[in-house]
């Protein structure tokens, strides 16, 4: 077993017991990044800085400084602003943009001792479900390089799956963490809207953007959230709600937990083999004492349509700022998908169409949210598939945007409702990974970890 295959928890133990150094750990990740170059998971690798910081961390470890991520190598989606390190958002508009400040989350992670090994590839502006919309070339699935890794946080998921970093950050506006987590066999968390600050992260659709992460297991996901979550004066959507002690949920088990299975997520269109796998996982949770209840979320069928109005509308507004004046290149540098979304958004917000599209979608959003409110009166968490299909072949959907958009069918609902979602790996079909989604009420991340951890035993 090489060093970089271990979890954060194992790494912390090894580091504090001096079984290995942070420098060795970072080197192992850097070696893996070089070896896996064909995966195209990184846009920028910070080799020199990472090694310097590792040596500094080793000194601190010797001095018995205790920080939750001291000496731990992580990667960041290249949409997180990093002071002094190029940040592209996967777009050529920002090909030479060096931020003057870091995102709140980056600061929190660095204050906790984390070492940034690099900035990961992603669909430009986080627009995409496959990783193919990056202006820096597509990322490949480490389990089979002919397949997509899922997007938009493609390189982040790959960097964790391929042991190039022990954890990675992502953003999830319609499934951009959960989908690649599922396609790459790692754990991916989309926290409650506002639980983690968006400050310093390139905005996609501001009423939907959630800031989360990828890890190798549920324990690490809980640890990462305990560092990133909380109020930030620079993001008014972060509430005062106390950050839970997430680690306390991890070993509670699922005895007497009520799990809802929404029938709308298991209809036609879902790969039968995925359905079987999820059924088996649910059965295993039942044998651990969970109570299963079949529920309905009747407005699910409208979610994708609702999402593909609200999201492009907000995208068109957020991307209006790129005009080459303060930073970046001019608007001719936008790629196809950004152009599509800007135009779609401009159209639905334009005079005469606003009521028919945007206003209507905001009302349907209320219905989607109410579905979940009602469901969570009866159950603690909800289990669904993450994706209706297995990872698809690179190039398969690139000329058909609508087909690509429909792959978000099981994930966009959580963004519309603002609720948290955890994607956990549940095995393989035809040697390709399959994930399962656990959803809960606002600010119930602890419960998701509780149920997610039980799936790891299952």
């Amino acid at each position, binding site marked *: 077993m090489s060093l970089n295959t271990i979890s954060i928890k194992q790494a912390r133990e090894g580091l504090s017991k001096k079984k290995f150094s942070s420098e060795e750990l970072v080197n192992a990740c850097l070696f893996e990044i070089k070896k896996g170059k064909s995966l195209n998971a990184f846009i920028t690798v910070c080799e020199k800085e990472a090694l310097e910081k590792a040596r500094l961390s080793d000194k601190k470890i010797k001095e018995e400084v205790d920080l939750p991520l001291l000496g731990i190598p992580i990667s960041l989606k290249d949409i997180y602003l990093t002071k002094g390190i190029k940040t592209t958002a996967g777009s050529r508009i920002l090909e030479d943009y060096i931020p003057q400040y870091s995102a709140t989350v980056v600061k929190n992670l660095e204050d906790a001792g984390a070492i940034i090994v690099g900035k990961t590839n992603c669909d430009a502006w986080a627009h995409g479900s496959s990783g193919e919309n990056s202006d820096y070339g597509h990322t490949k699935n480490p389990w089979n390089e002919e397949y997509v890794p899922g997007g938009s946080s493609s390189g982040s998921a790959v960097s964790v799956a391929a042991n190039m970093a022990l954890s990675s950050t992502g953003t999830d506006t319609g499934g951009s963490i959960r989908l690649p987590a599922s396609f790459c066999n790692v754990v991916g968390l989309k926290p409650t809207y506002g639980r983690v600050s968006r400050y310093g992260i390139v905005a996609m659709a501001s009423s939907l953007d959630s800031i989360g992460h990828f890890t190798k297991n549920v324990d690490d996901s809980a640890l990462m959230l305990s560092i990133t979550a909380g109020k930030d004066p620079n993001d008014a959507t972060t509430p005062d709600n106390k950050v839970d002690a997430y680690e306390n949920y991890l070993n509670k088990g699922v005895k007497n937990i009520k799990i809802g299975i929404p029938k709308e997520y298991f209809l036609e269109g879902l790969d039968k083999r995925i359905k079987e796998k999820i059924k088996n996982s649910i059965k295993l949770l039942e044998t651990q004492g969970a109570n299963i209840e079949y529920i309905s979320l009747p407005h699910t069928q409208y979610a994708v349509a609702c999402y593909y109005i609200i999201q492009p509308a907000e995208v068109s507004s957020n991307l209006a700022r790129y005009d*080459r004046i*303060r930073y970046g290149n001019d608007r001719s540098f936008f790629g196809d998908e950004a152009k599509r979304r800007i*135009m*779609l958004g401009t*159209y639905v917000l334009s005079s005469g169409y606003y009521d028919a599209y945007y206003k209507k*979608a905001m009302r349907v959003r209320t219905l989607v949210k109410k579905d979940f409110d009602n469901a969570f009166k009866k159950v603690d968490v909800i289990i669904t598939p993450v994706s209706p299909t297995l990872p698809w072949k690179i190039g398969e959907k690139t000329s058909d*945007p*609508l087909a690509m958009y429909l792959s978000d069918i099981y994930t966009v609902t959580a963004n519309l409702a603002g609720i948290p979602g955890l994607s956990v790996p549940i095995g393989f079909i035809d040697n390709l990974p399959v994930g399962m989604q656990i959803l809960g009420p606002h600010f119930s991340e602890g419960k998701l970890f509780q149920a997610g951890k039980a799936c790891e035993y299952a």
Partner: protein
Amino acid sequence: MKINVKHVAKLANLPLSENEEKKFEKQLNEVLSYVKKLNEKDVKNIKETSQITELENVTREDNSSFSLTQEEALSSSKKNHNGMFKIPKIF
């Protein structure tokens, strides 16, 4: 309702080639005909949701805090003059 790509691209200040206009028109009309699905639902009496965790009027003390220096703010701009951004003529 069909999208007029040329007009929308102008509103959004997006330079498009003729080929792009054709390609996007087809693709965007497909998406628009899909999102029309929402018309099946009567939502006349439903309230709109914009802030999903229902926060309202979030304020803070009016104190100055971290901000970029003039030099930092200009550091990524391609054209500047006398400590100011240089922009194309508007009038």
